[in-house]
């Protein structure tokens, strides 16, 4: 059963990812991204990370991709980019080399190393599967106990996002304002 789920999800993920890379039109790319994200979400569920799956769908598919699309529309850059050739000489071969190399080493490492994970992994924290609490409760405990600092930092992170956007999207008038005079 899980096999079936995995295969379907994997297909979704890969297809979507490839779509992002090869679809010339940003809008299409964004949509294929959604596909991947769904696939990931499915895989989360398959691994008992229901809450994450939900968040994945809401945050990513719901918010982020929409944001992407919004920008695409806003800026009107939905012209398809010509992917048959690459203006940078040698970029494609380089990309291939990097891709294959990376794939090679990662696969090699994973294949030779996963068992070690099993030998090592003796549930450091509370168990995932055979725990009385539901996934979300465990998550909450973890977030607010072990990772409370991280959690706080994320809040700072969001502040950065907000402030940054504000700073960057200032009226351009501000830039031509002569020195000394007060901003609008």
């Amino acid at each position, binding site marked *: 059963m899980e096999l079936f789920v995995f295969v379907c999800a994997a297909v979704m993920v890969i297809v979507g990812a490839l779509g992002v890379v090869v679809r010339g039109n940003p809008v299409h790319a964004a949509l294929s991204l959604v596909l*991947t994200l769904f696939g990931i979400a499915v895989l989360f569920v398959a691994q008992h990370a229901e809450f*994450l799956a939900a968040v994945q769908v809401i945050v990513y598919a719901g918010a982020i991709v929409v944001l992407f699309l919004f920008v695409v529309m806003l800026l009107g850059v939905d012209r398809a980019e010509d992917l048959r050739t690459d203006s940078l000489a040698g970029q494609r071969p380089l990309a291939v080399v990097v891709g294959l190399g990376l794939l090679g080493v990662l696969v090699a490492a994973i294949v030779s190393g996963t068992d070690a994970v099993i030998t090592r*992994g003796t549930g450091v924290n509370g168990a995932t599967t055979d725990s009385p609490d539901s996934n979300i409760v465990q998550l909450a405990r973890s977030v607010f106990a072990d990772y409370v600092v991280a959690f706080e930092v994320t809040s700072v992170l969001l502040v950065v996002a907000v402030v940054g956007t504000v700073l960057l999207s200032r009226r351009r008038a501000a830039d031509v304002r002569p020195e000394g005079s007060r901003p609008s």
Partner: protein
Amino acid sequence: MIALVVQPTPMWYLLLSAVLFVIGTVGVLVRRNPLVMFMCIELMLNAVNLTFVTLGRQLNDISGQTIVFFVLVVAAAEVVVGLAIIVAIMRRRTGVNADDLAELKG
């Protein structure tokens, strides 16, 4: 049938995420549209997320998922900032792609 006997081991998930990661990497290298490059980065992040969840499950450790939770936030924040920057540039010169931004070099 086979589907019932063969269980996907964690390694499968890990390999899948590795592949996803590589696709994302290649995407960054080959795409010219900053937005799409950015999407590819998101792909990479998702690959990592998948890895986290898988390993967390493998280790009977919830923190795998917790970390993913944070990564989501990071991704969101990154998107906001990134899009802000891109918008700022695109406003100035519409339809610019990554290769057009090469004034600084040497």
